[in-house]
């Protein structure tokens, strides 16, 4: 997509990974990126823009104005893995992939909208006015601020060698912001890279996704 639309559009990827370069660089290098590939070890985008899941896209125009606030962004539909590859994966991963296949995404519509914006700029109907951008921005009640502070404490303690002590703060962030998948998945990963059931947390990815229905994991994108 970047190659098709560049230089009319620049793609910037940002890895939301408390693990920083250690976590993100292997993926960046594997992808052989030609665009800016940044690493957000402090999860600043969560706080600054209201990102709560990945992949999330934000469109910014030439003046530095956001014309589409954070929303699910899939440039393509993930392909089903071959049977021999699936057979080699842990059972829980296969179950997770099965649920993920039911998620509601529309890459074709998203990319078409992106192409339209690149071609037509502010005249594109997909480029939102500032007041609409703000209206679509995630509400931030007091408990969300507290959740962010708790998550940050958890990150800080995890990074400074107090992983066990971080758990209570991650749990509190999850309680205060139950629909923030970034907080959940980042924390679960530290207890189990496969994000399965662990003694540290009350839930796990599969359980939570099945609770809400995979089709509701991402909100519908109002293009």
């Amino acid at each position, binding site marked *: 997509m970047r190659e098709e639309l560049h230089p009319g559009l620049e*793609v910037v*990827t940002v890895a939301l990974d408390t693990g920083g370069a250690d976590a993100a660089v292997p993926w960046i290098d594997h992808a052989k990126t030609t665009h800016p590939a*940044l690493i957000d070890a402090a999860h600043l985008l969560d706080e600054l823009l209201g990102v709560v899941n990945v992949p999330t896209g934000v469109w910014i125009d030439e003046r530095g104005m956001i014309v589409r606030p954070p929303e699910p962004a899939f*440039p393509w539909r993930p392909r089903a893995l071959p049977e021999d590859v699936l057979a080699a994966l842990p059972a829980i991963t296969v179950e997770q992939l099965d649920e993920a296949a039911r998620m509601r995404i529309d890459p074709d519509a998203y990319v078409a909208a992106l192409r339209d914006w690149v071609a037509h700029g502010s005249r594109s109907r997909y480029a939102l006015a500032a007041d609409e951008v703000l209206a679509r921005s995630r509400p931030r009640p007091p408990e969300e601020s507290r959740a962010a502070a708790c998550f940050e404490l958890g990150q800080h303690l995890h990074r400074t060698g107090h992983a066990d002590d971080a758990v209570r703060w991650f749990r509190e962030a999850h309680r205060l912001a139950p629909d923030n998948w970034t907080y959940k998945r980042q924390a679960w990963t530290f207890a189990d890279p496969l994000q399965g059931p662990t003694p540290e947390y009350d839930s796990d990815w599969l359980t939570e996704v099945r609770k809400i229905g995979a089709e509701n994991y991402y909100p519908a994108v109002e293009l």
Partner: protein
Amino acid sequence: MIVDRLDRPPPGLEQRTGWGVKPEGACRGDVCVPLASPFDLRDLSRRLGMALVHDEQHGVWALGPDSGGRALHTAELPDIVLPDRNGEDFSLRSLRGTKVCMIAWASW
């Protein structure tokens, strides 16, 4: 943001939150909120709705973003500077003049 003392504005407060502490109080754009004197982060926290959470065991606080509105208070992209895979800082503002599609992803 992580802070280790309450008697002065945390370094980087304005860059991180948009709120700078000035003689008039805490200010962001044209809005200023008076603050108590001497400075106390707990006072700023209450007045701006920024949660302040204390980990007594480790002697640190975390200050959350301001609340009561939305995550975005302006459509202008904040000054986001993040490192690339080589550790070199990259500013999103360096891309002014170009349309940008920023995609947040994760290894998890």
